[in-house]
C-alpha cells in the first residue's frame, strides 16, 4: 500500500524514528522480568548521569536530556523551545556550524534532537569506540553556544519549513497531536501552539537564544545517559573530565502547570481546507502520574485501543466499518512515562461523511460501559501481557535509544532511573476494581474533549 503518515514529533531531522509506544510490565514472577543494569550518580555541578551496559552490538547511544520542554517556553515566544533545539546544532565553543554533525557522521554515527512536552533531548548512536569524542562534543555544547544572526535566520527558515511540511501543507496537519492540547487544556502552558506561530518564530532574536541557554541549559537541569557497549569506569573518568568543569546555574521556579478538573464535555470543530474526509479525536484527561489510577490507565489503554483485539478497533473497524484504523495512546509525542505534567489519553480516526460523529461517540460510550461493567481478572492479565511486550519493544528500539529515553525520563523527572525495573510491581497492583474506579472517574463523558475535522477539500 502506498500510504503516507506524518510523524508527530518536533525534531531536528526528518527521519522516521519508531513511534514510541505505550509501555508497561507484566504479572509474571519477578525472576522472569527483564532487569536493566543501571549505574546512577550526580556530578558536583548537579548533572545526573545514568550508565547502562549492553554488549549485544559494538555500539553506544549517548543522550543528553534538558529539563525544558515546549510547555514552559516564554509566553510571547511560542515555538521557541523547538527553535532553540535547532540552534544547539549551529555551533558551540569548539565546534562550528555543521562540525558536530560531521563529527558524528564521519565516525559512523547518527544523531538527532527533539523537543517534547517536558524535555528537549539530543542524542547520538555511535560505534562503541567513539565514546570519548561523543562525550566531548556534548560537553562542548553544554558549555556554551557560539552562534550568529545568520545561523538564527537560517534555522528560522528551516523551522518554518518544518511547520509547513508537517502542518500547513498537510491534510490533517497537526491533527490531533498538536491541536488537541490546545483544545483540551485551560492553562496556557499546556494549551499553546507548541510548534509556534510563524510570526513568533520570526520575531526571535539572538539575545533570546542566549538568554534561554543561560536559563535552562545548565548541568543541574540535565541528565546524561549512556547505553551500550562501553566500560563503566572509563566512561566515569571521561564524564568527570569533560562535564564536571561546567558551572551550574540557578534555575527559575517551575510555573504552575495544573489543570482544573474538567466538569463538562467540550466539543470543537476545525475546518481543514486540505482534507476531504472527516476525522475525529477524543481525549480524556489523565490521572496524575504515578498514582494507582495512572497505572490502571496504562492497562485501560491496552484494552481499549492498542492492537486488533482492542475494544475500539473491534467496534469501529470490524463491527461498524467506520474506519480502517483507530490510533491511540497516552502522550502522542512519546509514551506514558516521558512527560511530566497534565496529559490526555487520546484516540483518533478518519471516517466517511456518511457516518455521523455522534454514532462514533456512541461506540465510545458503549465500549467504556462494557469495560466498567464487565472487566475481569483475565482481561487485566491480557492487558499486562500486551504492556510487557510493548515495553520490550520500546527498550529494544532504535539501537538502545528507546531504553535511554526511559532511563533519562525517570532520572530527570523522578530522580530514579531504576524505576524502569520496578514498573512490573506497579502494574501488578492493578485490579479489575481499580480499572472500574479509574474508568468511572477518568472516562466520564464530562472529562473528555472531542475535536472533529470538517473537511473542506473536494
Amino acid at each position: 500500500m502506498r500510504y503516507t503518515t506524518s510523524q508527530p514529533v518536533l525534531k531536528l531531522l526528518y527521519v522516521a524514528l519508531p513511534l514510541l509506544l505505550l509501555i508497561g510490565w507484566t504479572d509474571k514472577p519477578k525472576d522472569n522480568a527483564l532487569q536493566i543494569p543501571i549505574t546512577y550518580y550526580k556530578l558536583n555541578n548537579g548533572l545526573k548521569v545514568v550508565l547502562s551496559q549492553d554488549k549485544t552490538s559494538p555500539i553506544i547511544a549517548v543522550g543528553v536530556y534538558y529539563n525544558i520542554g515546549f510547555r514552559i517556553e516564554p509566553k510571547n515566544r511560542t515555538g521557541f523551545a523547538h527553535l532553540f533545539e535547532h540552534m544547539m546544532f549551529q555551533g558551540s565553543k569548539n565546534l562550528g556550524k555543521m562540525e558536530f554533525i560531521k563529527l558524528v557522521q564521519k565516525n559512523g554515527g547518527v544523531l538527532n534532537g527533539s523537543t517534547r512536552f517536558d524535555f528537549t533531548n539530543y542524542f547520538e548512536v555511535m560505534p562503541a569506540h567513539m565514546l570519548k569524542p561523543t562525550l566531548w562534543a556534548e560537553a562542548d555544547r553544554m558549555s556554551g553556544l557560539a552562534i550568529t544572526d545568520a545561523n538564527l535566520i537560517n534555522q528560522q527558515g528551516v523551522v518554518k519549513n518544518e511547520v509547513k511540511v508537517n502542518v500547513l501543507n498537510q491534510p490533517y496537519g497537526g491533527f490531533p497531536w498538536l491541536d488537541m492540547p490546545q483544545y483540551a487544556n485551560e492553562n496556557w502552558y499546556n494549551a499553546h501552539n507548541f510548534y509556534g506561530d510563524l510570526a513568533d518564530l520570526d520575531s526571535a532574536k539572538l539575545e533570546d537564544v542566549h538568554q534561554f541557554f543561560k536559563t535552562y541549559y545548565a548541568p543541574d537541569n540535565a541528565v546524561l545517559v549512556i547505553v551500550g557497549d562501553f566500560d563503566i569506569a572509563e566512561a566515569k573518568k571521561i564524564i568527570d573530565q569533560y562535564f564536571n568543569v561546567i558551572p551550574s546555574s540557578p534555575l527559575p521556579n517551575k510555573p504552575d502547570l495544573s489543570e482544573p478538573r474538567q466538569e463538562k464535555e467540550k466539543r470543537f470543530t476545525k475546518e481543514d481546507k486540505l482534507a476531504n474526509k472527516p476525522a475525529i479525536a477524543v481525549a480524556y484527561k489523565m490521572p496524575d502520574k504515578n498514582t494507582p489510577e495512572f497505572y490502571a490507565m496504562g492497562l485501560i489503554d491496552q484494552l481499549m485501543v492498542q492492537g486488533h483485539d482492542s475494544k475500539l478497533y473491534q467496534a469501529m473497524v470490524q463491527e461498524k466499518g467506520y474506519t480502517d484504523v483507530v490510533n491511540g495512546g497516552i502522550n502522542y509525542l512519546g509514551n506514558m512515562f516521558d512527560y511530566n505534567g497534565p496529559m490526555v489519553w487520546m484516540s483518533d480516526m478518519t471516517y466517511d461523511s456518511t457516518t455521523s460523529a455522534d454514532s462514533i461517540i456512541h461506540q465510545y460510550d458503549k465500549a467504556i460501559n462494557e469495560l466498567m461493567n464487565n472487566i475481569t481478572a483475565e482481561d487485566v492479565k491480557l492487558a499486562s501481557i500486551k504492556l510487557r511486550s510493548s515495553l520490550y519493544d520500546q527498550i529494544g528500539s532504535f539501537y538502545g535509544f528507546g531504553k535511554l529515553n526511559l532511563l533519562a525520563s525517570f532520572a530527570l523527572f523522578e530522580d530514579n532511573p531504576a524505576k524502569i525495573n520496578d514498573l512490573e510491581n506497579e502494574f501488578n497492583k492493578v485490579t479489575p476494581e481499580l480499572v472500574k474506579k479509574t474508568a468511572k472517574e477518568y472516562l466520564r463523558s464530562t472529562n473528555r474533549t472531542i475535536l472533529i475535522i470538517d473537511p473542506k477539500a473536494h
Partner: protein
Amino acid sequence: MKKIRIYILAIIGLLNFNLVIGQPPSGSTPKDFILPAKKVKNFPNGFRTTMVQFGSIPKATISLIIKTGNVHEGPNEVWLADLTSQLMKEGTTHMNFKTLSKKVAQMGGDVNISVGQSQTTITGTVLSEYVPEFIKVVADLVMNPAFPASELERIKGDLKRQYNVDKTVPQSQAAEKFYGALYKGHPYGQYYPTEEMINRYTLQMVKDFYNKNFGAKRSVLYVAGKFDEAAANVAAQTAFSKWKPGAAVFYPPVKAVTSNDTLIVDRKGAPQTTIMVGLPTLTPKDKDYVPQVVANSMLAGSFGSRITSNIRENKGYTYSPFGFIRNVPGSSLWIEQADVTSEHTIDALKEIEKEVDRLGNEPPSKDELEGIQKYEAGIFVLRNSDPAAIINQLNFLDLYHLDDSYLTNYVKNVYKVTPEKVSEVVKNNISYPKMTLIMVGDRDSIQRQIVSPKKAF
C-alpha cells in the same frame, strides 16, 4: 620590536592552545563487528526459512515475505493485492478475526500484513515463548485464508477512504506522478486505483489473485531475535512443508523511462512545493552499486551531504531534503525529494543541479570521501543490530540475488571506492539533464520563478 614580537607570539600561542583544546579527542580502537549468523533451511516444496539469534530482549520478530505485490496487478486491478491481503487478515478457515486477534494479543503481538510493489509481508513481534505458536498462526493465515464474503464491501470501503485521504497528501501526489512517468505502462507506475476500479473488485478476483501469486516457492519465513530455534524449526516444518509450491518467482521485465520532463501538479496557495527529481540508475547487481551508495550519501543521502548542507543548512529553503536509491526487482531509481518553501522552488532546484554537476565533474577530496566511508561502515553495523533491520538486510540479498559476500565484503568495498569513482558514478548515472522533475505546488508561483523554462532547470 621585541615586545611586539612577544605579544604576537603570545597570541599565536593562545590560538594554538585553543586549537589544541578545540579539537575533539580521538576514539579508541574500533571493536570488531561480527554479522549475526543466519541459519537457512530449504523445504522440498520450495519454501525457505532463515533464522537469526540476536540480542538479549525476550522477543522475536517473525516475517513471512512473499514475492508478490502490486507488481502482479493488471492494468485494471490496482490495489487488488492490497484488497487480497486485507481480506486475508480477516481470518482463516479455522479462526475468525476476533478469535485470531485475541489469540495473538495473548502472545504479546499483533499480525500485520503489508503490501509493497514487489513483496507482501505478514509480520509480528511476540514474546519469545510464543514464537512457535505465532508461526502456526502466520501459516494458517497464508495457507488457509477464509476470505469472508461478509467483509468484502467493508474493506473496499476502507481502501476507497485511504485512497481519498492519500490523494490529498502532497508527497503522495508527487509520488503518483513521478512513478507514473518513470514506469509508464508498467505495474510499478500504477500508483492509485480509481473508486470505480475498487467497486468492480469481486471475491473471485481476490481468490484468483491469491491462487496465482501465493505459494511456497515465492515465500521465505524470517525469525530474528531471542527464541528457541529448535521449536521454531519444528513449527515451521510442520506448518509450511504442506503448502502448495505455487508459481515460481516472477517479476515482469521493466525499463524505466529516462526523460527530462517537467510536470507540475497545481496545489493552489500551497506554502511549499514538493519536489521529486530523479532518474533510472544502477541496480544492486551492478559492480558499481556500492560506489553509487557512497556517492548518494555524499551528495544527498545524509544530513552532512552536499545538497542537504546547501539547501537546508545554508539557504534554509527546506526542512526535509533527502536523496535515496529506490530499488524494485529489475529497476533502481535515484531520487532527490524535498518540500521547499514556495518562493524558493526554482532557487532550490538550481542548487540541486549545481551540486549534482559539481560532484560529477570534480572528484571529492579524500577527506570528504573518508568521512562518508566511515559513515557507511557505521550505518552498516546499525543495519545489522536490530531484528527487523537484520530481516531487511537478508531480504535485500534474497530479492536481488546477492550472495552473502555482499554483506561480508560490504565494508571492505565501501573503503575501496576512490574519489574518481564517486565522480564517475555520478556523472554516468546521476546526470541532472536526464532527470524527470515533478513539482507539486502553486503553479502560478512556480511559473513566475521560471524565467525561461528550459534554462531554469
